[in-house]
């Protein structure tokens, strides 16, 4: 019995050792009579020593231990990065955390500290977070975060809105934005005016009569007389004064080059072509090919991911066809889609009252919201920008009588060429009187 047990212990040794010494060890056991516990203790110690020290198993154990250590470190690093991204307002961070929760992955630090900081006691926050319509971030920080992941962030604007103009100014005054983005591509300047634009943005003293050619001489007649555009350019010029030359923001004129002195008929005007082609060329050649990052502000119909309202190619689809995945499209929420839950979102995410809110749409209920063509919102944009309820999104008009008669005479001429009627005089309102 004892011999069999001893033999079993020998058999448990690594093959190399067993084949070489087991017979001799058994012989010694037989010779010494196997009295007491001594032989068994000795062979057990030998068994452990052979497996741990000499078989190489310790290397596997050590490797496994080291891997666990590295995995744990990596996991904690990722959690910390995710929490930091969420605090910075990265709209993708919340989605990632939600994904982890839904797939049962542990993410205790983040869920405890960041998602539901104050609301955990009441137990209400979780249900609110689960039912919120989209992934929320502060508007400015959300756009900065999107710029870090996409070289081209496009804001589809409704032209002339005062709150949008204020948001653009706040955005370019944000230090992180200045550190992230090099170029701003605008619709309200034509490419032939790029040298003039560069001089103005660089801080050169220029008479206003010269500067306003930037927004007056574009392919769309009198479309940029709202003061928000001139104020935005002035703000960029002001910000650049405080930045080192190699970090200054550059404004890129996106609209098709036009010389109105040579435009006499509607055919001349039509020959200018689709300005989406021009916007896309500027983005590709001046931004993406140079490895830059840009904020692009164009009308909504130029930037929707599904093409323009007629299903034709717009700027986004043209850029995406050459640089897939490069764009991130933000549409202004001018229909109040976010209005009902916005107070709750502000409270839940501890945003300042009246903060601009960026709502990322992918995989959220709002993303499935259909437009009047039954196209889900997520096929048109990556995020919605909430600047306030619809009634506050009012247009900023130029002051009454501010447009000089000689210019209005030219506006009328251009209106007749573009529209065949004095349409522009009508929407300019009191400024044209």
């Amino acid at each position, binding site marked *: 019995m004892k011999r069999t047990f001893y033999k079993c212990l020998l058999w448990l040794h690594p093959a190399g050792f067993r084949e*070489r*010494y087991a017979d*001799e*060890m058994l012989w010694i056991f037989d010779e010494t009579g196997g009295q007491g516990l*001594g*032989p068994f203790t000795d*062979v057990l110690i*030998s*068994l452990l020593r052979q497996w741990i020290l*000499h078989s190489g198993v310790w290397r596997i154990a050590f490797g496994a231990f080291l891997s666990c250590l590295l995995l744990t470190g990596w996991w904690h690093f990722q959690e910390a990065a995710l929490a930091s991204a969420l605090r910075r307002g990265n709209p993708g961070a919340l989605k990632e955390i939600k994904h982890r929760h839904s797939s049962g992955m542990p993410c205790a630090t983040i869920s405890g500290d960041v998602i539901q900081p104050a609301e955990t006691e009441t137990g209400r926050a979780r249900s609110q977070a689960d039912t919120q319509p989209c992934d929320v971030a502060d508007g400015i920080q959300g756009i900065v975060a999107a710029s870090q992941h996409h070289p081209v962030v496009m804001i589809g604007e409704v032209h002339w809105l005062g709150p949008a103009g204020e948001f653009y100014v706040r955005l370019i005054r944000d230090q992180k934005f200045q550190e992230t983005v090099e170029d701003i591509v605008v619709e309200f300047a034509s490419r032939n005016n790029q040298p003039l634009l560069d001089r103005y943005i660089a801080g050169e003293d220029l008479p206003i009569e010269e500067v306003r050619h930037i927004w007056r001489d574009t392919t769309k007649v009198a479309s940029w007389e709202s003061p928000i555009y001139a104020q935005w350019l002035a703000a960029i010029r002001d910000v650049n004064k405080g930045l080192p030359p190699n970090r200054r923001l550059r404004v890129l004129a996106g609209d098709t080059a036009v010389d109105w002195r040579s435009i006499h008929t509607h055919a001349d005007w039509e020959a200018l072509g689709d300005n989406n082609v021009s916007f896309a060329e500027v983005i590709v050649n001046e931004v993406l090919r140079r490895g830059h990052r840009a904020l692009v502000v164009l009308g909504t119909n130029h930037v929707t991911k599904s093409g323009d309202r007629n299903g034709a190619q717009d700027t986004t689809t043209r850029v995406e066809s050459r640089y897939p995945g490069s764009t991130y499209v933000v549409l202004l929420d001018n229909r109040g889609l976010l209005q009902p839950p916005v107070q709750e979102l502000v409270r839940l995410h501890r945003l300042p009252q009246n903060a601009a809110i960026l709502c990322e749409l992918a995989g959220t209920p709002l993303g499935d919201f259909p437009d009047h063509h039954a196209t889900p919102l997520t096929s048109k944009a990556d995020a919605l920008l909430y600047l306030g309820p619809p009634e506050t999104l009012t247009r900023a008009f130029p002051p009454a009588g501010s447009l000089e008669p000689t210019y209005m005479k030219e506006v009328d001429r251009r209106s007749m060429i573009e529209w065949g009627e004095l349409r522009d005089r009508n929407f300019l309102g009191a400024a044209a009187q």
Partner: protein
Amino acid sequence: MLPLSPAALHILLALAGEDRHGYGIIKEVARQSEGHYKLGSGTLYDNLQKLMDRGLVREATLRSSKADPPRRYYRLMEFGRRVLEADLVRLKTVLREARLYLRTAESGKAS
């Protein structure tokens, strides 16, 4: 390599006189230590393996008698002998220091 473990020291000492098989080493160690050090077979072969890996000991040819099956014999190598001598010199120094210390301590107590 130095100092040698007690088991390695006893094994090298057991092999210093002649080639021995495993059981012979165990018996010789028991004799040298007057039965105070009992070497188990697991400890023996684990140490033998290490000593052979380090080139201190090697397997000699298999030998058998009419009564017994062939046994592996182990032989002390020249390098093993030098290592053993070096360890014995070290032990002598330890012993001398120990004696000196104990003598001083005893004479201190006596005065």
